[in-house]
């Protein structure tokens, strides 16, 4: 006998002790696919035959089965299963996981079983046991299907058992082997004209037999082909021929299901547009109706496609239903789930499953008309209500592009206004973040690097900061990454940092041209500026504000909101004068910038940390210097102490001027300087695909129109050109000698790989005077410098890349219209990484 098993399923072996179940299982299944009750007895009691261990053993057995079914693994239960009660428990397990229970019965004569057991010294339980088994089994045989087994295979006698073969057939819905590309088409509802227009727009043409097909692509219909619209029969005809010719797949919608019942001669309630379908089909001939009945009958509730990356179902599909089959699954896929309540239009309130969806597969569905198709938690509803006068939408996969055709007319009036509840309330629910998404150890996927792990402690620290001090998460679409300094300068230079090591880093990493940008000494600021409050509400969901500026840890930059407002207003006006709103076709921009003076944000730090060092140091060193001079004059031999004191006093003075030049009072917005260096994003685009020269030149225009904006001086350096490199070095030396912090060097293009690894997006090279603020007034004294040169950059560099990747991912997700949760996760990740312990002086 050939035993055909749907994969995955739960296989229940039924047979008396000694019937040969274990050998049968060994022959046809992987050792890991077989769960044996005897083995479980052994696990809990060290005795595979212990009857006392029965309860515990079966608890373990059921636990293992559940885990395997949960993971969609075919599982074979090797236990006698001769009693209905024990089988029932297994059937329930299979049902709970929406998989088929299958019974394979080994109906072997009692004598054979007795004989085999007699040969096994561990089975000394007496002949009555096998006798009872056999009796129970024989009594069960005819009821197995009724008990709930979807398939029952009975192998009568030793010979049949030995000769049986097992084959596995994937479930109907498992089409992971199909990789497309696909065009997934939303609810049609008899809108034949729009369907044909959409197919045309997608590049489908009728072949000689009249079937629409595309040379490279396959169409996928999310169901509800029928009812309400004017050309139900035509639509069925088009889709049926596409499906039967292999040009398309289609899942069953609730309307299709109801029409099928009508065609099967049942009497469904004629409402919700079924009448139009009936009228159309009744006017056709019987063979046509029969062809459509067969077509609809063959439709299944959902498909898993493209290696498991794509799921298509009419009303959607939860992660735990995908690739499974049961009445519950089919019903969910066709109707969705309702909460039991009804809304003010008397329609059932649908449970917003997409809001909680966290599955890996993208789910494309229809069923509920929405004003526009938008992604939510990796799901998208593409029913844009064509029959109600909206649009017919197709999603191209894997491109994720939407292709639409506007309805020619309104064919039916919806019971509730288009998009009244569902899409808005689902989107609104998505605005509330969930603790479960940002707690515990998490792995963040992004398109730039391998998965990035966020530790539970770092994540909790980040969450505390975000929740207590952070800017509204809806604004926070980016946090800037940390930046590594260049490798420590060679010892003979008498410096900690020098450009020489930057050139070598980028050369070694295959970079030909770099951009050197002056590094401003202020505070990092990320700014979102919307064209107006309307744009802020539309795109960010925030009312009563039109932009925000935040620090590298996500705090609002200005405590004084009116000052923030003035800065935003000035930038907005400059962009309006530049005509950027039209040029970029956007109503918002996101900038990465330095805001000066340093003292505007660091006042507290300066007062608590930097100035006291200068105060205490100057007073101690000056008095000490004078005392030493006096002692020397009095004839005490103080050796080189006087000169030493003079050098240290000088270093202290230099330290003070190093930080004081970055401080000035801010009395009004005029005293601020805004130096943008990245135009991060605007509607539809993350601008990291453009060179840093583009960023510098574009952003320099702001300074022409707004005095608080600073154009950052920069140099483009061809690393093969020694004189250009020497020029850049000279530029850095002059810059830092006149009080500049230093420079940042970036590869010309933003994203670069070398040997399959990301290259640092930027390295900084700070000037010797500036570094006094970081390493202490006297860091350049030889005995100090020698020790400070030993610094490790590995951790900082790794962090810089991971933070950069998550920051870019946050922007990418936001621009792609992904939900708040998905964007926030990345921003939270950057902040969590920032809490990793790394030498803060780097």
């Amino acid at each position, binding site marked *: 006998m050939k035993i055909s098993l749907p994969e995955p399923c739960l296989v229940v072996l039924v047979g008396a002790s000694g019937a040969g179940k274990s050998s049968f299982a060994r022959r046809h299944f992987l050792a890991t696919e077989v769960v044996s009750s005897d083995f479980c007895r052994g696990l809990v009691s060290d005795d595979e035959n212990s009857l006392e261990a029965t309860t515990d053993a079966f608890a373990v057995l059921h636990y293992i089965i559940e885990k395997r079914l949960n993971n969609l693994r075919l599982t074979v239960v090797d236990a006698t299963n001769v009693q209905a009660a024990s089988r029932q428990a297994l059937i329930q397990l299979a049902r709970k996981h929406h998989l088929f229970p299958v019974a394979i019965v080994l109906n072997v004569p009692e004598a054979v079983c007795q004989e085999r057991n007699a040969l096994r010294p561990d089975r000394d339980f007496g002949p009555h046991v096998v006798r009872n088994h056999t009796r129970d089994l024989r009594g069960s045989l005819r009821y197995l299907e009724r008990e709930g087994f979807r398939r029952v295979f009975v192998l009568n006698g030793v010979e049949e058992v030995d000769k049986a073969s097992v084959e596995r057939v994937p479930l109907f819905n498992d089409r992971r082997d199909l990789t497309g590309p696909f065009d997934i088409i939303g609810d049609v509802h008899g809108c034949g004209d729009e369907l044909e227009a959409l197919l045309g727009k997608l590049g489908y043409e009728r072949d000689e037999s009249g079937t629409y097909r595309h040379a490279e692509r396959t169409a996928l219909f999310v169901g509800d082909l029928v009812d309400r619209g004017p050309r139900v029969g035509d639509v069925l005809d088009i889709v049926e021929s596409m499906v039967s010719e292999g040009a398309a797949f289609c899942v069953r919608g609730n309307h299709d299901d109801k029409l099928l019942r009508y065609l099967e001669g049942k009497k469904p309630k004629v409402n919700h547009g079924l009448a139009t379908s009936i009228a159309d089909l009744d006017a056709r001939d019987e063979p046509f109706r029969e062809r459509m009945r067969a077509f609809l009958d063959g439709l299944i509730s959902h498909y898993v496609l493209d290696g498991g990356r794509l799921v298509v179902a009419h009303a959607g599909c939860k992660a735990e239903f995908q690739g499974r089959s049961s009445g519950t699954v089919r019903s969910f896929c066709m109707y969705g789930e309702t909460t039991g309540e009804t809304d003010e239009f008397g329609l059932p309130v649908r449970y917003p499953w997409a809001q909680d969806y966290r599955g890996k597969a993208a789910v494309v569905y229809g069923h509920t008309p929405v004003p526009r198709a938008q992604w939510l938690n990796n799901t998208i509803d593409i029913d844009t209500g064509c029959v109600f006068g909206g649009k017919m939408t197709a999603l191209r996969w894997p491109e994720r592009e939407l292709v639409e055709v506007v309805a020619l007319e309104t064919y039916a009036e919806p019971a509730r206004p288009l998009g009244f509840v569902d899409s808005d309330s689902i989107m609104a629910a998505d605005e509330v973040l969930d603790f479960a998404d940002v707690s515990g150890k998490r792995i963040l996927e992004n398109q730039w690097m391998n998965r990035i792990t966020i530790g539970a402690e770092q994540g909790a*620290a980040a969450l*505390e900061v975000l*929740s207590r001090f952070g800017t509204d998460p809806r604004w926070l679409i980016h946090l800037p990454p940390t930046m590594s300094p260049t490798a420590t300068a060679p010892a003979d230079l008498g410096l900690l940092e020098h450009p020489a090591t930057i050139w070598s880093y980028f050369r070694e990493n295959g970079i030909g041209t770099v951009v050197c940008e002056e590094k401003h000494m202020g505070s990092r600021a990320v700014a979102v500026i919307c064209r107006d409050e309307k744009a802020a509400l539309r795109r960010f969901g925030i009312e009563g504000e039109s932009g925000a500026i935040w620090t590298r840890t996500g705090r609002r930059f200005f405590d004084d909101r009116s000052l923030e407002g003035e800065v935003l207003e000035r930038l907005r006006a400059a962009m309006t004068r530049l005509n950027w709103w039209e040029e970029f076709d956007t109503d918002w921009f996101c900038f990465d910038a330095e805001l000066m003076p340093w003292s505007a944000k660091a006042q507290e730090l300066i007062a608590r940390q930097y100035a006291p060092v200068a*105060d205490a*140091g100057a007073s101690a060193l000056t008095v000490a210097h004078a005392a030493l001079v006096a002692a020397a004059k009095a004839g005490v031999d103080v050796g080189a102490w006087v000169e030493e004191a003079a050098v240290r006093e000088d270093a202290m003075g230099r330290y003070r001027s190093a930080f004081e030049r970055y401080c000035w009072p801010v009395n009004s917005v005029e005293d601020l300087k805004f130096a943008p260096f990245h135009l991060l994003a605007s509607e539809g685009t993350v601008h990291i695909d453009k060179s840093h020269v583009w960023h510098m030149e574009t952003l320099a225009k702001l300074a022409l129109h707004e005095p608080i904006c600073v154009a950052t001086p920069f140099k483009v350096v061809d690393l093969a050109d020694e004189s250009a490199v020497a020029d850049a070095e000279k530029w850095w030396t002059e810059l830092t000698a006149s009080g500049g912090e230093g420079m940042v060097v970036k590869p010309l293009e933003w994203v670069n790989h070398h040997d399959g690894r990301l290259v640092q997006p930027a390295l900084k090279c700070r000037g010797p005077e500036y570094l006094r603020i970081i390493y202490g007034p006297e860091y350049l004294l030889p005995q100090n410098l020698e020790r400070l040169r030993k610094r490790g950059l590995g951790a900082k560099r790794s962090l810089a890349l991971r933070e950069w990747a998550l920051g870019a991912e946050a922007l990418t997700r936001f621009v792609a219209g992904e939900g708040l949760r998905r964007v926030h996760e990345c921003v939270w990740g950057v902040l969590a990484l920032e809490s990793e312990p790394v030498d803060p002086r780097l």
Partner: protein
Amino acid sequence: MLLQLSTTHYPATDLGFLLAKNPARAQEFNLSFGTARIFYPESSDENCTCALMLDVDPVALVRGKNSGEGLLSQYVNDRPYAATSFLSVAIAQVLRSAMSGVCKEKPELAQTAIPLLAQVEGVPATPQFLERLFGPLGYEVEATAVGKRHSRLVLRATTKLSDLLSHLYVLIPVLDDNKHYYIGEDEVEKLLRRGTGWLEQHPERELIVARYLKKQKRLIRVALERLAPIEEGDETSDAAKDEEEQRAERPLSLHEIRLNTVARVLKEAGARRVLDLGCGEGRLMRELLKEGQFELVRGIDASHRALEAASDKLRLERMSERQKERVELLFGVLTYRDERYSGFDAAALVEVIEHLDMARLPALERVVWEFARPGMVVVTTPNREYNSVWESLPADSMRHRDHRFEWTRAEFEAWATGVADKFNYSVETSPLGPEHETLGAPSQMAVFRRNAI
């Protein structure tokens, strides 16, 4: 770091004997954290000055620090320059005999009060604080501010050199809270030894002990008890009785009124499972746990530090298994939906909402009233109108630095009604605390009850 000691005692060069350091020679001493140099800028019979110059190695100071001490400790700091516990250690090591009052050459001079002057640069304290510390010890204190956080300190007195050095030894580390070494039991010994004879009477005794021992409460108790041993007998119990009486008579603080009221409301409502959102140090939880009616009190806070404090105050570690089952402290955030908030009879938000940016309130509202949906929600918040009753509060300012807003009674009422309507609750607001005739009570409370569907 520089300490200069001078005397005009004749012959002033005797200072060299007292310090056991030859005025004609400059000397260097290696210490674990740097070098100490001793030299005399001036040594005549009329006036003699000895300078103790201490160079702390700034690089070694930072090396090997772990991040637990705060990352800023790795940045520049004033430790190498300011007069801190390093100076005390240097005094103890380099001028040990002088501080102990031992002098081989002139033993009687070491026990004699002589005119002395001490000058310390970069003392991390205000002139006022220096006066409070050194004034009571009989010094003429001349302190001038250097920058915002440091002073130059000049002390003049006719006193024994050993006393002056002991005073400096104990009080310099007291000036700032950052001691550079581990504080253990032997620190108590050191303090007691060097403080003998003067610390017992010092009016700032408790502050000095607390700061010297870096606010480690147990050590402080040990030290204070040994400084002023509690005598056995009636005296103690009388003092204790007085304190009890005072405690009973003292009017309840506003916060106590608030907690009592909220606890009473929850009790009367018959709540069994209560969620304390923003539990802070767990004071409301402690009240609730006294009542057997409450089967589970789950405290949530976004501050790990607050949760640790709550765990200490509730003595969570020492509870029996049965008691522990009734109480939970969890890290959580009120603007993030959280399934751990579901299934409660009541939730309390006591003085919490005003710590949130107003713009984040709608998120909190949805988390609590839409998703968690407890049967009852009790919210308290300050009444801004009442602020003018308190003279100490500047006009238009808020009560707490971290308050993002404070509401008038009307504003609170409007908000509460709005929330109730939106999420199908009913609400009643009431004043909390003694009422002013026109301005209302200092605090206000809203009790929301979930409507039956």
